[in-house]
């Protein structure tokens, strides 16, 4: 079994009209055994920047700690929050540092940049950035997620419709993947507020 499929994960981020949504599943497993059904994969870096880390859970925890450390230092030096584009470059650099002994993680980064323009990107485990204008996916359920998002996505959706779309795309995709699921965690971010919702899907 691939090391990326050891713990199981599903991540998706979508762009809407002046807003974005980022969602993950909640299962933490050890190959075929489910250990937890409330595992957090999406982390807040600051109010307008979220990162989801799929892949090996231990590396996503280590990588998150390193990124928070770097961002806090940045905040102290620059006296402001990091822009999403900058943060994505930082993540890419940190991942490529370990080119010949990588972190087994695939990050999904979503944020509101200058003038609250939504920004999403994903990268592979050695930091190859993939910018997209509509949606990005990662995890063991990524192939199902690509299909679901492609068919359900419309450009310039408002916040409520975006939430519905991303939730349906996530739940239908993880139902086809035995290693991810047990509900969903959705963060909906607009320039004025951040909403966090827990989805109940098939609990298996």
């Amino acid at each position: 079994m691939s090391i990326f499929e050891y713990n199981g994960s599903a991540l998706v981020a979508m762009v809407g009209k002046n807003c974005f949504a980022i969602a993950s599943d909640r299962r933490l497993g050890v190959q075929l055994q489910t250990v937890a059904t409330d595992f957090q994969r999406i982390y807040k870096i600051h109010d307008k920047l979220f990162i989801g880390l799929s892949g090996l859970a231990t590396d996503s925890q280590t990588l998150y700690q390193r990124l928070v450390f770097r961002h806090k230092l940045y905040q102290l030096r620059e006296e402001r929050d990091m822009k999403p584009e900058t943060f994505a470059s930082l993540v890419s650099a940190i991942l490529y540092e370990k080119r010949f002994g990588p972190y087994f993680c695939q990050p999904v980064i979503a944020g509101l940049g200058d003038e609250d323009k939504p920004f999403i990107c994903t990268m592979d485990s050695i930091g190859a950035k993939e910018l997209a204008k509509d949606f990005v996916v990662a995890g063991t359920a990524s192939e199902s997620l690509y299909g679901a998002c492609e068919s359900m996505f419309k450009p310039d959706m408002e916040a409520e419709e975006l939430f519905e779309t991303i939730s349906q795309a996530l739940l239908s995709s993880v139902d086809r993947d035995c290693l991810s699921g047990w509900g969903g965690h959705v963060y909906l971010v607009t320039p004025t507020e951040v909403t966090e919702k827990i989805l109940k899907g098939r609990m298996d």
Partner: protein
Amino acid sequence: MESVFGLVGKDFAIVVADSSAVHSILVHKTNEDKIMVLDSHKLMGASGETGDRAQFTEYIQKNVALYQFRNGIPLTTSATANFTRGELATALRKNPYMVNIILAGYDKETGPSLYYIDYIASLHKLDKAAFGYGSYFALSMMDRHFRKDMTVEEAIELVDKCIVEIRSRLVVAPPNFVIKIVDKDGAREYAWRQSIKDGQVLAA
């Protein structure tokens, strides 16, 4: 293979481990204590390679004591769990410790807590957790019978149910188990469940 499991009740946490020390087909002893008492209110049940287990748990125990000497106050369970994860994560890509850990503790402010720490340093706070082949039986029994805020008697009843399952359904079932409990009065040994005593002379 070694079984360790634990659960959280009302104002206490329990950790149970089997007590056989095995090398290949030979059972060296059946009263090995695999649950280290880290300090007055913390228990660390560990399973995995014998040398790593003994060495690593002692290392954590001494560092927990050192913190208390240096700072005058004990570490919280959460801090201990994160420290343990950090040590495992640092060693992971050099010389990994093959030890799975269930850390249970009682803090005055936050009450009882239980942490699941994989040998590859995945950390998660849980109400019930298990490692080893016995986990397949222990987790299923706990999924069926566990409720939040159980009393000590109810929890021990559940623990005994798990032990019965492991003994009857696992082909190389360990005969003896040790149960330790941690609550506001401290961490202590609660009971042994022995079906074979060392030095016992069995009639042919």
